[in-house]
């Protein structure tokens, strides 16, 4: 499992290739999050990402461990950038390698949904009207909560 919090950009293709080296891997699902140039009706010129060093890596590690308990995960890479980013820049990569696609898709989405609500990152946008902290979205809590619902149903 590879978890990195860094200022530098990353190469999604290289990360996916690295995960695919295990011959038992039949599927790699990946998600790349990007900075948009618009949010809540305002043009976003740049964004600064702050985090809680130490806790961030632990929190992501705990999320990945939870994913491994739920699905067959043979390899996983999570890279999240911090510092100043511009529209079009990559923010986050989640890539999961499994034997089959269902586990890879599900674990990738689960990790992303949990990261959104549990990993200590905060975005501040620079817009024409000035700087503003991005507000947490209720829809992200709903997205994370449905995995708990799924776990309850699975019993």
């Amino acid at each position: 499992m590879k978890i990195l919090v860094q200022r530098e950009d990353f190469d999604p293709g290289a990360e996916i290739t690295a995960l695919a080296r295990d011959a038992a891997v039949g599927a790699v699902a990946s998600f790349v999050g990007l900075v948009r140039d618009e949010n809540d009706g305002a043009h976003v010129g740049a964004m600064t990402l702050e985090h809680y060093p130490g806790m961030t890596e632990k929190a992501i590690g705990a999320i990945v461990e939870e994913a491994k308990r739920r699905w067959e995960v043979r390899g996983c890479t999570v890279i999240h950038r911090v510092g100043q980013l511009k529209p079009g820049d990559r923010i986050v990569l989640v890539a999961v390698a499994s034997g089959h696609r269902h586990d890879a898709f599900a674990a990738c989405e689960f990790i992303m949904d949990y990261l959104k609500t549990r990993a200590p990152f905060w975005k501040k946008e620079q817009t024409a009207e000035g700087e503003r902290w991005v507000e947490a979205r209720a829809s992200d809590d709903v997205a994370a909560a449905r995995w708990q619902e799924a776990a309850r149903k699975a019993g």
Partner: protein
Amino acid sequence: MTARVRILYFASVREKVGRDAEEIELPDGVGTLAALRAHLAGRGGAWAEALAGERALRAAVNQEMAAPTAAVRPGDEVAFFPPVTGG
């Protein structure tokens, strides 16, 4: 073991209170996150504004997300911050 706790502030909370970290003696009777938050808000001014009870804040004890009822003990690292917005 020190009788002090280290407190970290992040994002909008850090900006409001004007500092990113401090160490304080844990006052008598302050044994939970909620009690520590109320104690800090009791400083008034920006502290009251940043940490007042009606604000949706999250907190961590020793780098794990924790509920308001979570215990805070001497030597702990506590953090207060707004709901997270990464990803």
